C-alpha cells in the first residue's frame, strides 16, 4: 500500500516539473527500492518460517510418498521414483476401505454429537442460575486433562473384566460388553471417549458466540410472544451460524487427525475395527520393526487432501453466508 501511494505521489510531481526530474528521479527510485527492500525484510521472517516449517516438510512428505523408500534407500537417499504406485497400493490394500469408513464414522459421529451436546449445554448455561459458573467449569475438565491421562482412564473404565462400566452393567444385570476387545464395539468406545473430550471445546466457543448476540433481539422476540423453542430455532441458531461454521471446521480437522486416544485405547484393533487413516499411517511408518515410510506418507497425504477439501467447502459456505 505504501509503495503504491508513493508511486502516485511521484507521478503527480512529474507533471509539475519534468525539467528538474532527471536527478531526483534516480534518488526517488533508490528510495523506492530501499522501501521495497525494507518491506521484504519485514516479511522475510514469516516467509522463512513458513518455508522451513510448512512448505519444506510438506514437500518432503509428497516426495516420500512418490518414491519407493526402503530402510536402505532412506539412508542413502536414492529411492527410485515410483509415481502414484504407493497411492495405488494403499487404495487397493485390504485396510483402506475399513480405515476410510472408520474415519468417516469417527469424524462425523464425533462432530455431530460434540456439537449438539456442546450447543445444548451452552444454551443451558447461558441462562444464569446459582452455581452455573462452577458447573460450567466442571465441564471444562476433559479439556484440561492430558490426553494420555483421559485415554488411559477410559481404557481402564471400559476393561472387559475389571472395568467399572461392566461392573455397573452387571449390577443392573445387563451382560458384560467387550468394549475394547470386540470388533463391533471398539469403534463405539473410542467414539464415546472422543466425544467426551470434545464437548468442552464446543461448549466454550458456542457460549462465547451466544454472548455476542444482542439481548435486544431476544427481548423483542419475547415481547412478540415467541416460545423458547421458536426463539432457539429462529434467532439463536441462525445468528450462531458463522460461529457454528468455524467450530465445525476446526472440530473436523481436530477429529480427522485424532491419534492418541485411539492408539492408547485400542491401538486400532481388534484387527482393523477401530483403525482410522491417522492410526494406519502411524502403523505403517512406526508400528512395526520395519518402517514403510513411503506408504505412511501416502496415507498422511490422503488425510491432508481430505482436510483441504473440507476447508475449501468451508470457504465457499462462508462467502455465501456473507453474500446474504
Amino acid at each position, binding site marked *: 500500500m505504501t509503495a503504491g501511494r508513493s508511486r502516485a505521489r511521484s507521478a503527480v510531481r512529474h507533471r509539475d516539473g519534468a525539467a528538474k526530474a532527471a536527478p531526483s528521479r534516480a534518488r526517488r527510485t533508490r528510495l523506492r527500492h530501499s522501501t521495497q527492500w525494507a518491506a521484504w525484510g519485514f516479511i522475510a521472517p514469516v516467509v522463512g518460517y513458513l518455508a522451513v516449517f510448512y512448505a519444506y516438510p510438506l514437500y518432503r512428505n509428497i516426495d516420500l510418498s512418490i518414491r519407493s523408500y*526402503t*530402510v*536402505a534407500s*532412506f*539412508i*542413502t*537417499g536414492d529411492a527410485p521414483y515410483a509415481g502414484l504406485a504407493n497411492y495405488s*497400493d494403499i487404495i487397493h490394500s*485390504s485396510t483402506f476401505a475399513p480405515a476410510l469408513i472408520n474415519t468417516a464414522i469417527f469424524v462425523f459421529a464425533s462432530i455431530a454429537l460434540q456439537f449438539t451436546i456442546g450447543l445444548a449445554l451452552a444454551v443451558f448455561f447461558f441462562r444464569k442460575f446459582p452455581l452455573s459458573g462452577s458447573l460450567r467449569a466442571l465441564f471444562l475438565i476433559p479439556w484440561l486433562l492430558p490426553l494420555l491421562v483421559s485415554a488411559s482412564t477410559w*481404557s481402564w473404565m471400559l*476393561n*472387559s*473384566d*475389571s472395568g467399572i462400566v461392566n461392573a455397573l452393567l452387571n449390577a443392573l444385570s445387563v451382560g458384560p460388553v*467387550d468394549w*475394547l*476387545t*470386540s*470388533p463391533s464395539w471398539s469403534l463405539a468406545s473410542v467414539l464415546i471417549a472422543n466425544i467426551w473430550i470434545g464437548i468442552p471445546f464446543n461448549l466454550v466457543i458456542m457460549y462465547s458466540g451466544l454472548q455476542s448476540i444482542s439481548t435486544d433481539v431476544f427481548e423483542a422476540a419475547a415481547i412478540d410472544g415467541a416460545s423458547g423453542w421458536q426463539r432457539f430455532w429462529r434467532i439463536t441458531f441462525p445468528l450462531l451460524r458463522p460461529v457454528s461454521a468455524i467450530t465445525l471446521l476446526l472440530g473436523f480437522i481436530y477429529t480427522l487427525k485424532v491419534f492418541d486416544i485411539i492408539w492408547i485405547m*485400542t*491401538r*486400532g*484393533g*481388534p*484387527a*482393523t*475395527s477401530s483403525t482410522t487413516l491417522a492410526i494406519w499411517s502411524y502403523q505403517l511408518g*512406526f*508400528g*512395526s*520393526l*520395519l*518402517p514403510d515410510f513411503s506408504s505412511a506418507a501416502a496415507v498422511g497425504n490422503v488425510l491432508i487432501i481430505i482436510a483441504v477439501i473440507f476447508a475449501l467447502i468451508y470457504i465457499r459456505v462462508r462467502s455465501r453466508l456473507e453474500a446474504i
Partner: protein
Amino acid sequence: MTIKRTAYDTTALTTQALLAGQQGNSPNILLVDNPVVSTLTRAGILTTTAQNGLSTGAIAQNILGAGVMDGKTYGVPIGANTLALYYNPKILQAAGVSPSSITNWSALTAALAKVKAIGKKGITFSGINTEEGSFQFLPWFWGAGANLTTLDSPQAIAALTLWTTWIKDGYAPNSVIQDTQTTSWQEFQTGDFAFGENGTWQKALAAQMGADVIQIPAENGGPAPVPTGGEFFTIPVQKDTATYATSAKIVQCLSSTSNIVTTDNTLNYIAPTQAGQQAQVSADGTLQSWVSAVGVAKARTGDNLGTKYPIISQQLWTAVQKAESGAASSASALQAAQSAATAGISK
C-alpha cells in the same frame, strides 16, 4: 577418552538410529533391541564383526542368531531374556494341580479347567496387536511345530485355536486382546490367576509375590522353543574407520564375563556365554530354569528371515487379533495373514 551415553525410548530408537545414519552421525556404539539389528543391517548402517574386529567365539549360537544375516554377524548380545510360564503355587495347590505335570498342551488346558472349577482365573498373556503380541504367541506357534514361513499351516492353526479356545471357555480373560506384557503382568499380580506368560524381566517381582516358573510346554510334550529378547551391542558405520578398533575395545570390555554378569543381573538378563551363565547360576540357583529356557530359545529374525520377520510378524499379530476377537476363524485369519505376508515380502 570420555564416553557420552544417550538414552532413547525403545520404540523411538529405531527411527532415531535410521535418522542418525541418514545424517551420517551415527553413534560409535549402538545398543539395540535384537530384532532391530536386521532392520538396521538392511539399512546398511552396521558394520560386520569381520570389519570391526569383535570376537563372538564364546557366545551361544542361538542367542547370537538375531545378529546373523547371510552368514555375517553384526554385533554381540549383551544378554538374553525370554518367556516362560509363571504360576501361583497357592492356586495350583488349591486346585490340585502339580506344576511338574504340565508338560504338554492338554495337561495345561486340563489344569486351567481345574483352576476355573475352584472359581479362580486360568491364564493371562499379551495378545495385543503389536510386536509384543507376536512375541507372546511365538512359543505356542513354534511349540506346535509351525514355521514363520507358512503362517496358515495346520500346526499354526492349532496354536491359534488353543488361545481362542481358552478365551472362549473363560480360561483366559477377554482383556488379553488388548493386554501388553505389562498389563498382563498386573493381572497376574492380582493373585487371582494361576498362570501368567511373561518374561525374565519380571522374575524379581515374581519372587516377591511367591510365584514360581516353569517352561512353556510344546503341544506334544517337552519345552517349546521361545523367542529371544534382549539387546545387541552394534558398531555403526563411520566415515573414520579407524574408530572401529576403539569401539570394539569398549564393547569387549563391557561384555567381558565379570562386567556382563553384573549388567545382566541388574537388567534381569541371562548372560550370552556359558561362563557368564555359570557365574549367574552359582550366585543364584533359581536362575537355572531361566538358563534352560534361554537354552531352547531362538531368534525371531533367525532362520535367515531377517527383515522379512517384521512383515510376517505384523500379519501374525493381526491374525491373532482377528481370531481372539472373533472377527474371523483361526484358519481364515491365518490364511489371510499368509497371503498378505507373501505380498508384503515380494513388494
